[in-house]
């Protein structure tokens, strides 16, 4: 599989080409600073950012409009990231939306738990602008 893949730079270039205006990313985190951080990076790259402060609000946002990608924190009040993703995966209308989970938890079992809950990728906090953006670009690529 490794051999078949293009070099990182090509993938990067490709990702850039496939970002469309109006791509909507839902950022769910109880820390306002993190939400703002994501918003700044993503908006600068042309994404539309929707924020939610916990899983419940995240679900509500999901039901209100088309979301292309979910970026979600683990620890939140009311409904944490795992619960939210499990709920998203249970709902037929939402279940196909890819999700990236981000957390300071870095043990392999934490990562596995995220994938089990329904995440499609896992980023370690503190998130850095470049990898974060690259990841969002890749996962929001839309087929023409």
């Amino acid at each position: 599989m490794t051999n078949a893949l293009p070099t990182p730079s090509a993938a990067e270039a490709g990702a850039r080409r496939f970002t469309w205006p109006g791509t909507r990313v839902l950022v769910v985190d109880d820390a306002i600073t993190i939400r703002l951080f994501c918003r700044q990076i993503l908006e600068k790259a042309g994404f539309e950012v929707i924020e939610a402060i916990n899983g419940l609000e995240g679900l509500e946002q999901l039901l209100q409009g088309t979301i292309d990608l979910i970026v979600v924190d683990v620890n939140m009040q009311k409904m944490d990231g795992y619960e939210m993703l499990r709920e998203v995966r249970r709902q037929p209308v939402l279940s196909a939306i890819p999700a990236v989970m981000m957390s300071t938890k870095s043990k392999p079992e934490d990562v596995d738990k995220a994938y089990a809950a329904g995440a499609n990728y896992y980023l370690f906090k503190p998130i850095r602008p470049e990898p974060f953006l690259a990841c969002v670009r890749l996962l929001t690529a839309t087929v023409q």
Partner: protein
Amino acid sequence: MDHLLKQFVPEARDLLDKSSEALLTLEKNPADGEAINRLFRSVHTLKGTAGIFEIPSFTKLLHAAEDILNLVREDQLALDPELVDQLLAGIDVLAHWVEWLHEKGELPNDAASVGERCVAVYRQRLKASAPAPAAAAVDEAAETGPGANWLATLPEADQLAAVRLLAELGNDARLLAIAYDPDPQCFYNGEDPLFTVKQMPGVLSVAMEWRQDWQTLCEGDPFSCRVRLRVLADASRDAAGELFRYVSEQVDVREVRLAELLSFSVTPLPADSEAIVAQWREDAADHDWMALANAAEQASDREDSIGSSARLIRTLLEAPNPPIDGVVAIIERLGASPEAEPRPGDSPVRQLSEESLGALVLQVQQAIIATEPGSQEWRNRLAAVVETLGRVVYVEFQRDVRDELEQAFEATLAANAAEPLLTALSQILSPAPAIAAEASVSAAAATVDTPRRDGEKVLKVEQSRVDAIMDLVGELVVAKNALPYLARRAENEFGCRELAREIKHQYGALDRISQAMQGAIMHIRMMPVGTLFQRYPRLVRDLSRKLGKDIELVIEGEDTEADKNVIEALSDPLLHIMRNSLDHGIELPDERGAAGKRRTAQIKLKAFQEGDRVCIEVSDDGRGIDPAHIRRKAVEKGLIDEARAAGLNDRESVQLVFMAGFSTRDEASDLSGRGVGMDVVRTTVEHMGGDIALDSEVGRGTRILLRLPLSMAVTRVMMVEVADMLIGIPMDTVIETVRVPKGSLRRFKQAEMFTLREALVPLVRMRERLALPRHEAERDSEAVLVCRLYGAPIGLVVDDFNVGIEVVLKPMTGLLAGLPGYAGTAVLGNGQVLLVLNLKELL
């Protein structure tokens, strides 16, 4: 200040407040699982957020605290008062740093050392709580043979020196790594281990470590050798053999090459290492040593393991003939450390290969497909996996494979097994030409009733912005008040009655809107008194520990809301009342026990709303105030004379504490402070338009009730005319307006009064009181504004009544600031300045 940082400061403050609140709850009730979770979550969130700023000391401290909390949560460490103290101290340090970040945008200069100290304290606790068997095991492992693992702990300067030397010596160079564990009794054998080691030629590094946990001086045997020596030297094996010939059984000598020196895993890796290491890898893979040197240079100022690796790389690349394997080894070990074990989702580029982020994401999806096939969760997850695969494959291969994937998805669901999807995926990923597939997919999407739940939406706005709107509304109110004047002028001066009516009509509309607006903004400024109360648990805890008293604080009604200004202004008076209660009111446990009371005293802090007032009640079950004692003190201090003191009943006597210059304690304690007494509390409360009441019963306790307006922003005043001047009287004191016929006025010695519904109301002539000229003409009746003062009615004789009006009251400033009797000034619609009286001060 950086935009993000600006956002971070209030959030951090909030989280720190929550942490200490949870900590105190937890101390009281260690079994409170919700509190420990709350505490943990706050610390964790703060750590995650702090990570995006370059404040390593801050993050490190949080990290150490989190480790401790983790143990507490898992019941491996008891939350004793000492630990609470230590954690609170940490929170204080962080809070202090947050204020620095707020003001200066950076941490104080001593942050690193202060942080280190706190972290050291936490580490100590961690170590102390580590299960004993584990510690023994570690020790045992160390006993069996030192090996060369100690090289991992080599001080960085020494490591750099060794690496530099090896790099210069060339590819095949070796150093000697000598681990010398002297016999504890060596001193009796005439050995001097340190001296021996110093005889070694070409020593690069000498390190000492304790043989086992160091005991206190009195326990240890000063004549036994308790250290181990670790030496790195550029010397031959023979030289070492010669030197250590008498103690060869205590010495382990081995040769290390550059690669071995660098092969030890590095922990902990900072969380942001991923991207940096990825960059290094890429440069190394491209053999772009220039770029790598630059990248290493950039990271070389860091204090973490990435920084030390960067310095190593730089050192190696500076050598005349850079040992590339060494460089690669350094980069490798950053990836190979336990923290960063290769796993799906790890750094975008894990090895020096051509793997991309896309490849990793594909691997992750593959792994997800393969986990627990057949389970309901697995089925639920598939749609998103297929969607992700479609997107990533499109980016990576510029191919639209959605149809193939959909088909495989259907097949997988039908078979309830992972194989169809996995097969399809491997076919897609194989270089073979794409398989044309027919689309036979129906959209799985169906509308489903999903429960809608209420989420709170919170908008955080800086206070100053709300204040700005408030000010503007204030001005709008003033501008609005100009319309009636305009209407009057239109009618009287220009004779346009019709226009005047229209203006009045418009005024009515504008009045309604501006009032609604005021209400709305006022509502924004309302905040729960809980924000004020939350600092008291800490205060009570700290002070009761200091005073040796056992006090329980009960808080009620913290959801009661009041204007932010009111709450802020209450902070000091309330603090003072609380301290008084703690210091004077509450007895020592033994004294309470002797009096037949519960040893644990109670202070109750209660807030509630009563009409348009917010009430805060502080009550304790302490010793109460002894009226006789108060009377005696007041006479001693010359505040009242004996005769008056004798005439006071108990309730009245207790009120004497509000007199200026009254302080009952013979020696001022360091807690309730000196000089500032209850009189200051009273004045502050009254300045806010509130009042204060005190009840006390000897032996049973004291109760203080503060009643304050809900808002201080807009004041309704009644305007009256006195000697052609307009004067404002705060509406909340006004009871009614009456016109009293001259014949109804009664004179009683010097005082004038009149009867109002069978009650005698004393009169005050405002002209006299304000030192304005007396009336020239006799009047048939007097205009009397009946106000409430200290709970009793009083009549103010004025020339005439005007209208009630809402004003934004500005306190007197400059020279007039000290003038008693006035609450402040307000600007009227016609630009005239209205003086508003403070009746309590004036009369």
